């Protein structure tokens, strides 16, 4: 039996009708057309579908859309403000932290939540924070560089 809910995504309220078993990542992508969030494994192993749920980084393949009514969701599409990239996005560009780009939205969302919580992390803390996001291209080297640059205010 489908259910009617209101999803708050990137500050916009979406009234949708959804099957109760549908995961958030599928609804974001196929129902709302917000395809910036990627679905890499569907089981919470790879982190490509990471979004912000009430400010916390969450794998959107592990939560059901029907449970999200009244919660605040931010996806990669909501990170840039007024056409201006977030410092995290700018740092990923400048430091060459992007190769194939498939893990990039998830990594940026994880970083966004992490730096809110810990604005001045050590390298070890950065590595621990992004350990749930698999990146197969970069060896994480330039990703870590980019995140540390944002934290140290080199990317303002």
């Amino acid at each position: 039996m489908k259910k009617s809910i209101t999803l708050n995504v990137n500050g916009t309220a979406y009234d949708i009708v959804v099957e109760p078993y549908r995961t958030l990542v599928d609804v974001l992508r196929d129902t709302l057309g917000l395809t910036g969030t990627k679905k890499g494994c569907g089981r919470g192993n790879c982190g490509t579908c990471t979004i912000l749920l009430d400010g916390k980084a969450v794998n959107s393949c592990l939560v059901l859309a029907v449970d999200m009514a009244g919660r605040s969701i931010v996806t990669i599409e909501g990170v840039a403000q007024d056409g201006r990239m977030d410092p995290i996005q700018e740092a990923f560009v400048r430091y060459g932290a992007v190769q194939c780009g498939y893990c990039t939205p998830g990594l940026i969302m994880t970083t966004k939540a992490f730096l809110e919580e810990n604005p001045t992390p050590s390298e070890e803390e950065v590595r621990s924070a992004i350990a749930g996001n698999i990146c197969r291209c970069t060896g994480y080297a330039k990703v870590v560089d980019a995140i540390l640059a944002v934290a140290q205010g080199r990317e303002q």
Partner: protein
Amino acid sequence: MDYRVLGHSLPKKEVADKVTGRIKYSSDLLFPDLLIGRILHSPHAHARILSIDISRAAALPGVKAVITHSDAPRIRIGRWIQDRYVLASDKVHYMGEPVVAVAAVDEETADEALELVRVEYQELPAVFDVIRAMEPTAPLVHEDLSDYHCSSANLKSQGNILEQGKIVLGDVESAWAQCYLIHEDNYRTPVVYQGFTQPHETTAAVDSAGRITVWASNKAPFILRQMLAQALNISMSRILIAPVAVGGDFGGKGTAQTEPICVLLAQKSGRPVRLSLSREEELTSTYLKEATIMQLKAGVGRDGTLVALQGSIIYETGAYSDIIGGLARSCADLHGPYRIPNVDLTATRVYTNNTPRGHMRAPTTPQPFFALESHMDMVARKLGMDPIEFRLRNAVDEGDILPTGQKIMNPGIKETLRRTREYLKREGGEPKPNEGWGIASFQYHGVVTDSRGVIKDRRTPQSSAWVKLNEDGSAVLITGTLEQGCGPVSIMAQIVAEVLGISYDDVAVVAADTDSTPFEFGTGASQTTFRVGLSVQTAAEEVRNQLLELAAKKMDVSHTDLVVLGGRVYKREDPEKGMTLADVAALAPSVFGSPILGTGASLRAAKFLGAQPGEEYMDGPQHGTHAVKVRVNPDTGKVRILKYYGCHDVGFAINPQSAEGQIEGGIEFGVGFGLSEEVIIREGKTLNPNLTDYRIPTAMDMPHIDTEMVEIPSKAGPFGAKGLGEATNVPVAPAIANAVYEAAGVRITGLPLTGEKVYQAMQEKGRT
């Protein structure tokens, strides 16, 4: 040489769309009538298909197409050897083989339909062990193998042995007597997975006239079009492979896999279909990297000079092979970047009823180099020689002949060894208990050409490119190469900007569209910068020559007196006198009868000075040396990487940041191969088909990486550039194994170096 655009770390063209989530991969394409495809896989490793009943599945509401082998022409396909059907026909050859596919309005309906399909099988004897498969009495995986069409003409298949290669030089048997020391050992590597974050995804649509459009996670659109045309028995003109972003490739996305199934579903349903593989399907039904069994025996003189090498490698290629034809090179990989007068090496590729195997980043090379570089380390240790000095003593030089017969030009091996020695002097430090450094080197193929500069290697056919000048003097590059993550398209734009004297931002790129771009083999083989770069450079130079010709005519001067720079053509001696590119471009239609267009092909470009008729050359074989520091936990055997250094000869780094990224990413790849990755297959069944149990390195597993680039220019490559991307993963696993030996005194000869293996070896040695 100082360049304006080359040698600078400019951002990749598409990067802003990647950080904002705007870029579209295959499954990001939404259509109002989109169907979801799903595949039914074989539950048996070897069985005859007696019957397939799809009637109940087809009758399920919401199901729009159900297909079996009878929906496709009865044609076997394959990139090198045509050994499989799109959907299994009379037999299944491995557990996981696609048998039936459905397209339905959503995933749940499609999955429900698959449960309603009835397939009756008769199980057949299967063979899983590669040694057993080579015996004459083993069950045959492919009974009709001798009838299969194959691109490699001299394939001599026998039973399950698909092919063999051999290199013999000098006289190994009599050479052993001259050796001061002989070392023998056996090595093994497991099946591993490319592990791209984007799984295989295809979206296909068919228009009212029956023309097919495919948006696929595939880095070789022209190969895909060719294979689709073959599978469907239609003209290439009926198919468009349309450009779409690809989320990593690493060799696993350069051939037709599930794309034909998706197209058949779209044809039958008359609606667009999306077919995405789950990770379980990825690990059980796509082409993975071959497992190997290797043996090496090396002999050296008292001074550390290599005298003889005998060895063998067996590649277990599973039920279908997407990789045949390069076994002479595999023998050469067992030999490495060393001078060895007496050599006897064999390589064998064998079918089994395990999952199929294909390309993965330097497809057949990391395995032999794991054996060779582990072996060289032990030889050096037994001699009491420093491993770097040992390698320097034996490394190849300019003009040496490779075991495959080509003359080496511009090798970088010795310089990377010397830089590594310097690095270790700076960073090595005093050894602590349970810690140790290890090093390993590698050699990976460059481009083989004959004396006319014609590229010889059948694996690197021609590349072509067009450059078009716009009316305002900006340019469009039209190339079949595809951006799968390592930055090739942007590097090509840098080349065009440099040659035409315009800015990087003034070069737009049309890429990887089979209707509107010229043929390209695909982004791969570590030859994109080299091969595609040559064709792009040639095309851009042709545009520049046309500009010079037109301007010289108009200005009534010799074209040799003119310079093309800053969006103008002007007199070298009097820069005030000149024309804008826009004004020059406007002359073209009346003078040439057409706008300015340059065409380039790698064939025309690879010319060497001093080439001798009858000789073959390998310009810029890729060379590098890595060093790694590990700590082995004495209580668990667990290996932790503390520090990593990768030094590569890149010829010339067109985009240094992209080049560094290739080295860093290759090291992560190798760390997985070395420490944690193994697709565990027992009796044909894959036991760990998910990313929890198949362990790809995370940021916590990776150390800080120092990279260093040596630039010994190649003569043939664009601006001296050499290939880089794949082989960056080659020396990692042996370097780790050598470091583990240093730290814990145990030699692990089978990958991965899990804590369990290391601990067991330490126990056996009484070191725990």
